[in-house]
């Protein structure tokens, strides 16, 4: 069939857009005014990296080793690639940072959280995933990096239209 028109085309475009994020060379993201916060700088470099290994190195400057003290909670099949509920909790001590990476997103680093003293080392959030891939949670505890990984299946819904 030839190209579609009208409502259907719009739905298809948005559907494709929302579900499969096209791999487009990363133009320089227009960064706004200087951040108000003095000390913590927005990890611009890390967010620009493609692979999660590079992003982890850019963010923390060291590599992580898997740990079973981190519980990464993510659905087996994502209800929708645009809104994937992912949470992590850990029994590790002296946690200072928790970050989430979606391996095959255009940029692996999705979100990074600073955990000051007195804050419970556990975060829940909703992330976008371009396609079926590994979600990696990184916990920085007492200066060392630990990781937990889980694959989440992502596909579009509906019978095609």
């Amino acid at each position: 069939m030839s190209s579609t028109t009208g409502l259907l085309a719009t739905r298809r475009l948005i559907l494709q857009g929302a579900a499969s994020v096209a791999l487009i060379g990363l133009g320089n993201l227009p960064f706004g005014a200087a951040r108000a916060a003095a000390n913590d700088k927005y990890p611009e470099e890390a967010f620009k990296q493609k692979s999660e290994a590079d992003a982890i190195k850019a963010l923390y400057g060291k590599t992580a080793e898997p740990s079973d003290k981190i519980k990464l909670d993510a659905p087996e099949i994502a209800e929708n690639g645009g809104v994937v509920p992912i949470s992590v909790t850990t029994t590790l001590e002296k946690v200072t940072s928790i970050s989430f990476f979606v391996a095959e997103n255009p940029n692996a680093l999705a979100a990074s959280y600073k955990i000051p003293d007195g804050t419970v080392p556990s975060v829940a959030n909703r992330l976008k995933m371009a396609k079926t891939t590994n979600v990696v949670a990184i916990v920085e505890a007492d200066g060392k990096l630990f990781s937990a990984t889980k694959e989440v299946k992502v596909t579009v819904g509906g019978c095609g239209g």
Partner: protein
Amino acid sequence: MASTIRVRATANGDITEVQALIQHPMDSGFVKDAKGELIPAHFIQELKFEYNGKDVFVADWGPAVSKDPYVKFSFKGAKKGDDLKISWTDNKGASDTTTAKIS
């Protein structure tokens, strides 16, 4: 206009659980609109939670955080009735802030 930040902070014992839902498009810069043009990147980059002058939680976000972003965490040392200040800034320099009462 009502604030873009919805917060629910509930203290039980020494631990206060905080949930936040923020109204923001979180455009990744990779999605095309109906006419086929790229919607420019527009997403919250930093979200901060402060309790009596001290940061208790700071989020650095990229474009892969969902539209109308949601986050949940807990922290110790606060009690009912205290204030929790929440503020965000996005990559276009826009920002919003609000103060919630811990219930």
